[in-house]
């Protein structure tokens, strides 16, 4: 048996050469060399060799002592390999890979593994195409700054619309035809112009009335321009009492001054003191 094994190794020394070419080269009597047989071996096993070439290949395998057994061995090896079934990867592989790469847990738990096994359907393709856009938009919308800006814009728009007299119930009746939009535009413009003109008229009337009042009323003496300057109390460091300003003393010359006295029953019983101030005339 060992001799037989050694003989096989001598006959087909595969490990030292990149080709299946046996050391014994023969024509086999059918016009095909062993080297050509070697080149056609894969095609014959894959079933793509047909016609005359297949007949010559088979004929060479029958008569060649090197190529015939070699073909049988290759065919047997391929049959053995068909017995090997695929193995399932462990469940921990996905978890470990995700943990060591992205560092996040599975995000596609809701998707069944059948989708991955059967390939990509139209729904998967649509999701794959739209997901980057949706994620980008959703990422922007989720920011508080965007929410605040959107809220302020909505509020401003609603206030502006209410000031312009636009009601939501009216929007349903608005026609979006170009002629209707033009009509609405001119109407709005006319309303704005009328409003401006009315405001202008009111202001003009108010100004005329104010001017008329000013002309009818007597001229009041203007306060003297040379008013005594106010004393700066803050900078007064003399510690002297402040001199009171005497007001309208000239008018009190003939005035009756009621001093503090016990009140009588009637006004005639009140004690009256005549006070006359001496006026020094320079």
């Amino acid at each position, binding site marked *: *048996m060992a001799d037989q*094994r050694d003989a*096989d190794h001598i006959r*087909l020394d*595969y*490990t030292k050469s*990149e*080709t*299946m070419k046996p050391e014994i080269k023969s024509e086999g009597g059918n016009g095909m060399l062993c080297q050509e047989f*070697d*080149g056609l*071996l*894969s095609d014959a*096993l894959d079933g793509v060799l047909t016609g005359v070439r297949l007949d010559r290949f088979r004929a060479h395998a029958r008569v060649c002592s090197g190529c015939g057994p*070699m073909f049988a*061995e*290759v*065919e*047997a*090896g*391929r049959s*053995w*390999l*068909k*017995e*090997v*079934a*695929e*193995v*399932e*990867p*462990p469940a*921990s*592989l*996905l978890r*470990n*890979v*995700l943990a*060591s*790469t*992205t560092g*996040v847990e*599975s*995000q*596609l738990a809701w998707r069944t*593994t059948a989708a*991955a096994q059967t*390939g*990509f359907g139209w729904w*998967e*393709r649509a999701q*794959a*195409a739209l*997901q*980057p856009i949706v*994620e980008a938009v959703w990422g922007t919308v989720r920011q508080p700054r965007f929410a605040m800006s959107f809220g302020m814009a909505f509020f401003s728009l609603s206030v502006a619309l209410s000031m312009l007299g636009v009601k939501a119930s009216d929007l349903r009746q608005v026609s979006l035809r170009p002629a209707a939009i033009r009509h609405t535009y001119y109407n709005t413009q006319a309303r704005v112009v009328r409003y401006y003109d009315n405001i202008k008229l009111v202001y003009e009337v108010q100004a005329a009335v104010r001017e008329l009042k000013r002309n009818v009323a007597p001229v009041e003496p203007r306060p003297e321009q040379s008013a005594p300057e106010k004393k700066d109390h803050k900078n007064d460091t003399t510690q002297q009492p402040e001199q009171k300003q005497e007001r309208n003393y000239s008018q009190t010359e003939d005035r009756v001054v009621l001093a503090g006295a016990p009140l009588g029953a009637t006004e005639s019983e009140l004690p009256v003191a005549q006070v006359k101030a001496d006026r020094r005339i320079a």
Partner: protein
Amino acid sequence: MEDVQVVAMLVRRCVAGDAAAWEEIVRTYQRRIYNICYRFAGTSDDAEDLAQEVFIKMYRTLESYDSSKGAFVTWVTTITRNLLVDHFRKTKNDRITDSLDAGASAHEDAQPLGEQIQDQTALPDQHVRSREVGETVHLALGKLSPELREAVILRDLQDMDYREIANVLRVPEGTVKSRINRGRAELARLLQRTYRQVM
């Protein structure tokens, strides 16, 4: 196999920082990457570690993927293959190079190949038998040289075409075909030898 536009969109979303897109990529390709790692490394523990390393490398270099240069699955497989080759070189001294019957593989069962084949004949359940045969072939696959093993795995277990494999391995298509056939033949001889010993 994969919709180029959908995958390109997923990659763009992932590069932009979309964690959900990255999770979808991992879910879609974890089975493929884990199987390649498992068939190449031989054990489920090593396969899980290697698959995790592959995804980490993918995540870091996802920006470098250019859809005009090839399919995403080819790019993923290339990363996986390169990392497996690096791992193979690093652990070269640690591997045991005993024969199949010595039970050198660190597989869960860690049972000699001959004993497994003996046991499988006694099992009445066809499903269990098929699984046992698969495990036997898996053990034999681990005995192939790395360049033959990777070619066989990509062709017969991952159903990649020759051009894609040539892009992943960076060798001509003719070399790919030759390696695949050599790997198949070597595998058959290993299994036949085991059968002869059993019988």
